């Protein structure tokens, strides 16, 4: 099926990538990227109101628009919050175009090809990344082409490696360490889970991934490492059946908050601490985005975190409940370690107006869905 709304959003991102690419000054490029992202958000918001039903044959107007809205809001966060040094706005915009393209063309083969394209775009020559991600892309394409159980197995393996599920997660912390944070978010924003075949094995694998990564996140002593493991946790939960819309938005918010913090500090080591009074908004966004991932009440993840254990078999449900609990510990530990204990002398800057402009809609969406979870079902129905 081809969805016109997401196609329009993908086109906005593609055109945006060209426009941003023509701006030489990095600050101006960030402004331009924020404009492009705002337009993409507006177009997706319009697309959400369009009808889902097929217009003619295989063409629909509004299908998948809620996903595009989540992706575009993530794109807005990336555009506005990326530090000027080392930002890659053009690459991020292209990746967001690919992510929306996945929603525009709902054919498995096309989607697998688009994911391979994203992998190719992101690859910077790192050997470890290549060893994991190119086989994953190949497996996805083979899985899409092959019929029967062989295809299903290939698809499942491809999804698991692409989403850094245990035990194929080793490439991910290094990827987060060495890639601009905006590119990490953009690479994560592609809804790989749309290709996921529903098998019990994959669900159990997702739950185990979530639990083990959450424990690693809770024990880590570095902000960026914790972020990497929290992203893996979220991927695991999404594989196990959590909503990828909420996960995309919340991980983008958390990752960009950490990225913004990294641009203000030399290191994100938990031994150094920070000053809450100087950066209250930054600290609160870390907490709100993080607790959304942990399925905290009054935030968007809660309804999903509530339904997930009920829908799963008992052993998997236990693992998911424990994983969510440990995720909460990791988030609050990171919050306290990164934003407290330093005496109020450093002149660290709170969210800039531009960053605030991107954080407010994302957080508002998460809180609104948290207060009225019915909105999510309405938008993605």
């Amino acid at each position, binding site marked *: 099926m081809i969805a016109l709304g997401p196609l329009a959003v993908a086109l906005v991102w593609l055109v945006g990538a060209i426009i941003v690419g023509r701006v030489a000054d990095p600050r101006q490029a960030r402004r331009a990227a924020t404009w492009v992202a705002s337009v993409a958000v507006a177009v997706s918001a319009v697309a959400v109101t369009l009808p889902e039903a097929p217009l003619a044959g295989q063409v629909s107007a509004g299908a998948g628009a809620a996903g595009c809205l989540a992706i575009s809001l993530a794109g807005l966060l990336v555009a506005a919050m990326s530090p000027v040094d080392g930002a890659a706005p053009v690459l991020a915009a292209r990746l967001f175009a690919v992510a929306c393209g996945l929603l525009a063309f709902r054919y498995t083969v096309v989607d697998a090809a688009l994911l391979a394209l994203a992998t190719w775009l992101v690859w910077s020559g790192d050997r470890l990344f290549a060893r994991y991600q190119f086989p994953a892309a190949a497996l996805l394409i083979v899985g899409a082409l092959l019929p029967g159980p062989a295809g299903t197995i290939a698809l499942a393996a491809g999804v698991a490696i692409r989403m850094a599920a245990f035990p194929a997660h080793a490439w991910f912390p290094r990827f987060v360490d060495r890639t601009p944070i905006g590119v990490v978010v953009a690479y994560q924003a592609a809804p790989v889970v749309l290709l996921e075949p529903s098998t019990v094995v994959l669900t159990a694998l997702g739950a185990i991934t979530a639990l083990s990564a959450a424990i690693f996140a809770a024990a880590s002593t570095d902000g960026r*490492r914790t972020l990497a493991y929290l992203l893996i946790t979220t991927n695991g939960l999404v594989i196990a059946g959590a909503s990828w819309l909420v996960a995309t938005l919340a991980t983008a918010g958390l990752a960009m908050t950490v990225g913004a913090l990294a641009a203000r500090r030399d290191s994100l080591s938990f031994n150094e601490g920070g000053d809450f009074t100087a950066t209250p908004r930054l600290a609160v966004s870390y907490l709100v985005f993080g607790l959304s991932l942990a399925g905290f009440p009054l935030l968007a993840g809660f309804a999903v975190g509530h339904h997930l254990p009920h829908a799963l078999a008992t052993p998997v449900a236990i693992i998911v409940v424990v994983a*969510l609990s440990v995720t909460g510990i990791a988030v609050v530990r990171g919050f306290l370690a990164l934003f407290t204990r330093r005496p109020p002398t450093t002149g660290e800057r709170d969210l800039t107006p531009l960053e605030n402009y991107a954080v407010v809609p994302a957080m508002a969406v998460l809180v609104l869905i948290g207060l009225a979870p019915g909105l999510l079902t309405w938008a993605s129905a």
Partner: protein
Amino acid sequence: MSALLIAALGVPLAAFLGLALAMWFGRVWTEGVVSGLVIGAAAISGLSGVALAVVCLVDGPGSAVLGTWFAGFPLRLTADWLSVPVVVLVGLLGCLIGAFSQRYLHRDPGYRRFYLLLALFVAAVQVVVLAGTLDLLVVGWELAGLASALLIAFFHHRPGPVAGGLRAFITYRISDIGLIGAAVVEHHGGSHTVVGLLLVWAVLGKSAQFPLGGWLPRAMEGPTPSSAICYGAISVSLGPYLLLRNGVDGPAVIAVGVVTALYATLVGRAQTDIKSSLAYASMTQIAVVLVEVGLGWDVLALVHLIAHALLRSGQILRSPSLLHDHHHLEQSLGGPIPGTGRHFERILPARARTWLYRFALERGYVDAFLVDRVVGGLVRTVNRAAVAEERWVDRQAVTR
């Protein structure tokens, strides 16, 4: 009745959301406005409780279904002779603490944050108290846990309060697994015994019972008023309330209560500061309440719970003036205050007394065992695995 139920928990929640929005957008309301908003919200909440009591007297206890929050999550609130007294108590204490803090935290940089968290705490506890289903109770339970942890870490420039807050939050989250597990087991149609045991596990952390009570004395690092409402009165009382609400009793509850009561009374006697000894006194009394719950003496347990909450929060609020009060008492008595605990010297041999003193001083070695051995061991193993993995990854990634 529905309107009163909504007012009891909705008004503090609205105050929290309003304050949060105003603070995010940089509106600097004066101290009077902020505290007035929260005190007013708590007062309306408590008055709704009083009105609910009247409704209960006239129409009898009842519950109201306010529709569904989302699919499979009905919003059912219950007003009966168990919840209504606690609603009034929470509203009243919220008011009192709010009024007390106006002077106590005057011109503190975190004044507004304190009231924000206080509003969240009151709203969350009212959700717990009025919840008619276990699912809805979880919502309030988790929010109350977060609010208390952030209140403990209120003075965030010092490492002590931050560590205390983190410890409390970790304990809460670990014991919350029991509560969420109970809700899931209930949905899956599991046995009542399993649900009961999981709820007892949830109570261990929230009510600081043996062996998970180590966070309670450390929680006193927070501002005095929040210690009074959270750890003297309301937060620790939620455990027995949960068991009363779900009709859980039996030998497991009694065992937890007896062990904790003995442990806490012994350890509390060796504490050298007033807040720690009050924390252990709280722990002891809650344990005794648990024994009453386990024996099925529900009315006595509720009366004991409320009386303890009122007395203890008063004591904690008064604790900064301890020396003054002590002097005053000695002057009135005309001599030193007689010591307590003489019976230990009468009934125990000297060697056992020394051993017990050391046991009490080290808080029963429970903290050391749990923190250093169990959690510390796990963290060390995990970090060693992470380092090993990192080394392996580096070897793989190196270009030959």
